[in-house]
Structure formats: C-alpha cells, structure tokens
C-alpha cells in the first residue's frame, strides 16, 4: 500500500509535480515532525490563551482597581504590537538574560528553548485578544440574571461563576473561533525563532528538493484544513451548549 503510494508520487515527480514528502522517507519524516510541532503549538497556545483570556476577563469584571489596570495594560501591549516583534523580544531580549546551564559535554543549554518561548509568546499574544472576547461575552449577559442570583443570596463572585460565566461563554464562541483561527495561522511566526514547525521544515524541504511551488500549495492546503478543523470543533461545542430560547440562534 505505502509502496504503491510512493510509486505513484515518483511517477508524478517524473511528470513535473515533485512531492518528495510522499515518497522520500527523509522528507516525510521532517514534514511529520513539523506538522507535529505545529499541532502542539496550536493545542498548547489555544489552551493557555483561553486560560489567560478567562482570568483577564474575570479580573476586568470583578475588580476595578490595580488588577484591572494591569490587565488593561497587558491587553494594550500585546494586542497593539506586532507578534514578530514580541516573539523576538522574548527570544532575544528576555531569553538572553535567562540563566544558562551546561549539559554533560559542556555545551550551553538555555533554561527555555525556542519552542517554549514560542508557546509563551503566542499564548500571551492570543490571550490578549481572548480577554476582550470573554469580556464582551460577559457584557452581553443582561445584568438581570446576576441580579436574580444576588436576590437569591449569591455573592457577586458566586453569581459570576454560576450564572454570568456559563451564559457569557455562549456569547463568546464566534469571536473565540476568530481568535483561534488567527492563532493557528500565527504559529508560523515561530519559524522566526527557529522552531521546527510546518513552515520551517517545508522551507528545508523545498531548499533541498527544489520543489518550492509544490510545497507552497501543500502549505496553503494544510493551513486551510487546520483552520477548518478549529472552526469545526468550536462550532460543535457551540451547538452542544446551545440553550432553548437564549442567545444567538436559540430555539
């Protein structure tokens, strides 16, 4: 079966379409490594950015003092500066002042590698957008629901957790899907600090095999599939959480 596929793509290469990743074991391995790293970046950064967004929105809703000011400052900084600049800042500016250990044969090993910095940078970047997404979700929940909870003896905190948050989440999905699609595409920026993600390995492949046009088409197709999958998953969750007679597309 695999041999058949390899044979097919070898013949295809003879006719001018050279997809080495489907018949050359070395290129295939590089490609799968890149795809794996990209998927890992998407999963980790989605998770952390949602956590950051949720905490940030909670602070903005429940506090008006220092905490809220810190969150607003964070959002302003990370939403309004280029991701590539942020990534460089973390990797080259902060990374260079981090402690460095030595391995068994005496080579320097930084405390955090390029992959870790990429996760931190992308999570903070995407998290800033998620703060706004969840905050607008909270704003869309009519305050009469919180009031009803307060009238039943709930504290503001309890009312927020038990009533406002579950409803706010349902108003946040469309905007959250946007942010996560953007995050999926933004993982390619990790290339700039040397993370062997999909774009990085593809560059290696087309440099070695001189199949730039083919690999560009593969790239476009793969990111289309990845963002499609993100949207599909969010939509499934949104549908599963839909409530009768509430919010967008209710009943």
């Amino acid at each position, binding site marked *: 079966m695999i041999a058949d596929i390899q044979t097919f793509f070898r013949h295809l290469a003879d006719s001018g379409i050279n997809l080495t990743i489907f018949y050359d074991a070395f290129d295939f391995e590089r490609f799968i490594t890149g795809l794996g790293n990209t998927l890992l970046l998407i999963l980790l950064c989605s998770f952390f950015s949602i956590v950051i967004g949720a905490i940030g929105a909670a602070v903005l809703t429940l506090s008006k003092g220092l905490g809220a000011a810190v969150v607003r400052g964070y959002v302003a900084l990370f939403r309004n500066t280029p991701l590539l600049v942020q990534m460089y800042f973390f990797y080259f500016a902060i990374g260079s002042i981090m402690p460095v250990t030595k391995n068994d044969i005496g080579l320097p090993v930084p405390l955090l590698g390029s992959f870790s910095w990429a996760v931190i940078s992308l999570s903070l970047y995407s998290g800033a957008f998620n703060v706004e997404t969840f905050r607008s979700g909270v704003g869309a929940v009519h305050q*009469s*629901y919180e*009031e*009803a*909870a*307060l*009238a*039943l*003896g*709930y*504290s503001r905190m*309890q009312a927020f957790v*038990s*009533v406002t948050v*579950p*409803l706010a989440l*349902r108003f946040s999905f469309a905007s959250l899907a946007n942010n996560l699609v953007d995050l999926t595409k933004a993982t390619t920026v990790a290339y700039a600090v040397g993370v062997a993600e999909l774009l990085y390995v593809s560059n290696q492949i087309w440099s070695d095999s001189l199949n730039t046009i083919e690999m560009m088409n593969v790239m476009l197709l793969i990111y289309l599939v990845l963002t499609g999958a993100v949207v599909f998953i969010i939509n499934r969750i949104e549908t599963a959480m839909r*409530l*009768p*007679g*509430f919010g967008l597309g*209710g*009943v």
Partner: protein
Amino acid sequence: MNASSSSQPLISLRGVRKSFGPFEVLRGIDMDIRKGEVVAIIGPSGSGKSTILRTINGLTPINDGVIMVGEIKVNDPKVDKVKLRHRVGMVFQQYNLFPHKTVLENVAMAPIQVLKEPRSLVEERARKLLGEMRLPDKADSYPGELSGGQQQRVAIARALCMEPEVILFDEVTAALDPEMVKEVLAAVRKVAEDGMTCILVTHEMGFAREAADHIYFTDKGLIVEHAPPAEFFTRASDPRTKEFLSKVL
C-alpha cells in the same frame, strides 16, 4: 389576610431616600408591613415603586433612612446578605430564570449552593412547589421552552424554595400576555393565602383590590396615601390619587 395591627412590624422603612445621580427617586418613604400582610404598592410609572422593593432586599442601596427586616438592618453596610436574602425573596417582571439550568435546578440551586441544604431535601421541596404551581411535569425543561406565564410561576417557586418570610413581587404580570396574567395572579394569590407576607408592585388594580390588605399609593418618590383597599378605591382623599384612579379604573 390575618394582619394584626398590634404586633411589631416585620418590615419597616423610615425616611428612606434614594437618588440616581441628581434625580431623587425616593424622597422619604415610611412603611410598616406586618407578618402575613399582603401589601400592594401602586402609582404612576417612575414614581419609585420598584425602587422601594429593591431597597428592601438591599439590591438598591439607599442614601438616607433606615430599613429593618425583622432584626436585620438592611442599610447597614456590613449586613449579612445571605441572611437577608434568605428571609426576603423576590420575583421579577422579566422572570430572570437562569436559561442554562433546568426548571428544577433553577428552583433548587440557591438553597443548595447558598444555604448549603442537602440536595435531596431541597429537590423534594422544589418538586412539591412545582406541583403547587401546577408545573409538575416541567421539572426537566429549560426556561426557554416554557411560556411566559409558566416561567413566572417557576420564578415564584424559586423564591418560595428559599423558604423566605416575605416575597417581593415586582410587576410580575407586566410582561405577560393577557391570558397568562390570570394564571400568574392565581399563583400569587395562593402564596398570599398560604400566609406568606407579600409586597406587590402592580398595575392590576382589580387584583390589588381583592388580594391586598393594604394599599400604598406613590407619586414622585413619596407615599401620597395608604389605606385598606375598600377605603382606598372608594374614598381616596388626595387629588393625585383621584387623578390616577380616574385614569386606570
């Protein structure tokens, strides 16, 4: 229905004032409500009726005056809100049921989460209350699947499930279709007849007349006059009351 005017009032308001910005909504309200009494507050829109209700359970903080519910001083900044809202239930004009919870959860969640009562006990009580509200088969529905009248009866059951001493009804029929007003008023009436102390803000004059023990008429943040319904509707003395009644009756 069984008001004994000699006993200590359950709820008392003295000189209550409230401003929203430069606009003074309440300009010195005095009220006494005794246990088991059914009191209706009527008056033109914007006269502060709903605000009076919301000050009694502390949803709206006041600027001046004293509000007592039993021995609880509501306007004390350190008031125990759980204790206060355990004693004072509220039903809203827009029902305000939690759309992400089933009917049973809506009714049972506060006693479980706030009062820390055992779930089985609370759910048994909730089902009984839903039965009394003639909604026994709706326990597992979501509020969005019910009619307005049904939702409002769930809201009444939710207030009752906290086992309060008094329930505030804030224009509970104002958002309903005419044919649903009747079923909700019947539910309110049943609550009142079971001995619950009720304070109603309402535009249903007929209902106020037959169900209330006492009627307060408010205008521009003041209580213009108050009297038992028979007297109020036939021998209103203040010209503002007369004018209002001539419009609504």
